[in-house]
């Protein structure tokens, strides 16, 4: 389990990048990190990976401060992709695997499996610079995965991928998570985060505005009742909580919290009830709410 405790980071010009960010990612969980540009996602990930030093706070791995040796078992995909442009795909993946301490034989096997999985088999002898950006990203991912990492930190791994590559990557990450590896990734594609992640952290202005499972965040947001009544009696909703809006000859009443049964009774009395249901906020809505 990875625990982030009260990270603070102030950059040179007095700009507060992180202002007490805390969260945890248990084994086997997929954690989606969302937030506007400059919110502090990348800074947090860089601190976990040791690229940056925090001014305050700590990063714990299985309850103890993270060491270099432990970090060596992590897989990292930085925000700005970095590969040797003139090096061949296969050699590059092998090189990083070897640096992580995998012996030559095992690295070859792992590399073949990985490039097959990521659809790079035919590119294995090409130099990185000759690949499309999408394929370079796959190589970057292979570099992060080659040593069978015990934790994965990926900064915007889905950006720039075509839908098929997105599916492949999602599946690969799921596999790792099922194997007990905590997976942390940032993304602006909120539907994707909602679909993939067990838990989500929303950062804004260097602070964790909300974190937890998508379910928890929805519950925190509150249940939202939506009733559509056709040809209602005017003034039927007077005294009821919530917002009333008109859509042609229909009234739409949205109520957060409150007594759903009494609302239903009033609606039935008022006219023809076309739909009645509890709506769950999407991650997009939760995000807007949290960041607002």
């Amino acid at each position, binding site marked *: 389990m990875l625990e982030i405790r009260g990270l603070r980071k102030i950059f040179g010009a007095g700009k507060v990048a992180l202002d007490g960010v805390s969260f945890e990612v248990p084994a086997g969980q997929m954690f989606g990190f969302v937030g506007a540009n400059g919110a502090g996602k990348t800074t947090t990930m*860089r601190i976990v*990976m*040791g*690229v*940056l*030093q925090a001014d305050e706070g700590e990063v714990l791995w299985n309850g103890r401060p993270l060491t*270099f040796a432990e*970090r*060596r078992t*992590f897989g*990292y995909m*930085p925000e*700005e*992709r*970095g*590969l*040797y*442009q*003139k*090096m061949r795909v296969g050699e590059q993946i092998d*090189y*990083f695997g*070897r*640096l*992580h*301490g995998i012996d030559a034989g095992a690295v070859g096997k792992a590399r073949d499996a990985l490039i097959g999985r990521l659809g790079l088999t035919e590119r294995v002898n090409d130099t990185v610079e000759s690949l499309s950006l999408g394929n370079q990203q796959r190589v970057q991912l292979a*570099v*992060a995965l080659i040593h069978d990492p015990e934790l994965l930190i990926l900064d915007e791994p889905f950006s720039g991928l075509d839908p098929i590559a997105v599916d492949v990557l999602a599946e690969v990450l799921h596999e790792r998570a099922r194997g007990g590896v905590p997976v942390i990734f940032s993304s602006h594609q909120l539907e994707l985060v909602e679909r993939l992640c067990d838990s989500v952290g929303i950062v804004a202005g260097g602070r964790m505005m909300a974190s937890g499972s998508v379910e928890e965040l929805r519950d925190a947001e509150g249940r939202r009742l939506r009733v559509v009544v056709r040809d209602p009696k005017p003034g039927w909703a007077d005294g009821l909580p919530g917002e009333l809006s008109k859509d042609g000859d229909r009234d739409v009443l949205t109520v957060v919290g409150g007594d759903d049964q009494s609302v239903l009774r009033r609606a039935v009395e008022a006219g023809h009830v076309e739909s009645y249901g509890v709506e769950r906020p999407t991650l997009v809505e939760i995000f807007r709410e949290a960041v607002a």
Partner: protein
Amino acid sequence: MNGLLMVAGREIRTQVRTRAFVISLLVSALLTGGIAFAPKLFGGPDEYNLGRVGGQELAVQALAPEAKITWKTYPDEPAATTAVLDGDVDVALVDGTRVLSNGEIDDELGLLLQSANREAQIGAAGVTVTPLQVQSVGADTRYESARQGIATVVVLLLFFMIMSSVMVVAMGVVEEKGSRIVEILLISIRPWQLLGGKIFGLGVVGFINLTAVVAAGLVGAFLSGFATDFPPGMAGIVVSAVAWWILGYAFFAALAGSLASLVSRQEEVGNVLQPMMMLFLISYGVSFFASASPDHPVAEILSFVPPFSSMIMPVRVAASEVALWEVLLSGGLMVVAVAATLMVGGRIYERAVLRTGRRLKVSEVLRTK
């Protein structure tokens, strides 16, 4: 250590496989081999082909022991004339009285033939001429010009071979920093392993280059006969040049690697390396001066001061006789300087290489942790 060797291995494989490396290796080897041949082409021993019709051969060889003299005989004058016009022989001697030449006769050859003729006739008259004895009252200067030539070659060799390898180190550091590869690399290895591996690996590549050039030069010198002019202790001169290359390379590469880690773009490399270039160019300038005046006090003193010593001492060794203790003392001081540069440079590198963006100052890097 393992990480360092892996980094070094990658540098070596990457460099050795590039077409640029193979081409530059071939070109520099050919060039050096060619230069070693040059004395033969320009100032080598003379070679004369002489024709003869009747009469006796003149004792030209005795007058010019260095020259290669070949005599050919022809049955009659027309055959000899054809041979002269075709360039088969330089001149042809007819009946020991006339010389056929194609236009003006070569001055030196003309003198040789005239003297030989004179001696032959005087000898025939029963008079012997005692040749003048030459006696040197100065020091043995037989090898002075050879030593100076070799010293100049050592200066140029060190200049190019150190600089080319050092620049590859600097470019490599910036490549890794600018592209952020370093962020992934430093998860699995320490900064000193990364910088150390790069310096070591590119050093091996540079050493291969240097060895090829030196070998080509020596082979060329032996084939062309220039090697006969080598001063005694030539092996020592070669070994010292190679050893000093290693020290000089290590020093300047550590300096270049740490300075390069201050910038994130290749365009800035030239600028940030300026202090190192100053040191290097001073070393080069003084060592060039030392190749002509190896015993001048400035050359003598600076041949003990790192990093200047890395280029000046090998030049002094080539250009004059230097006592072994002087070489060892200077070498020891240089080793200390290399160790210190590696330590301080490693610290700068470690703190600067992850801070991408604007150019950093050494002072601010050393101040902050």
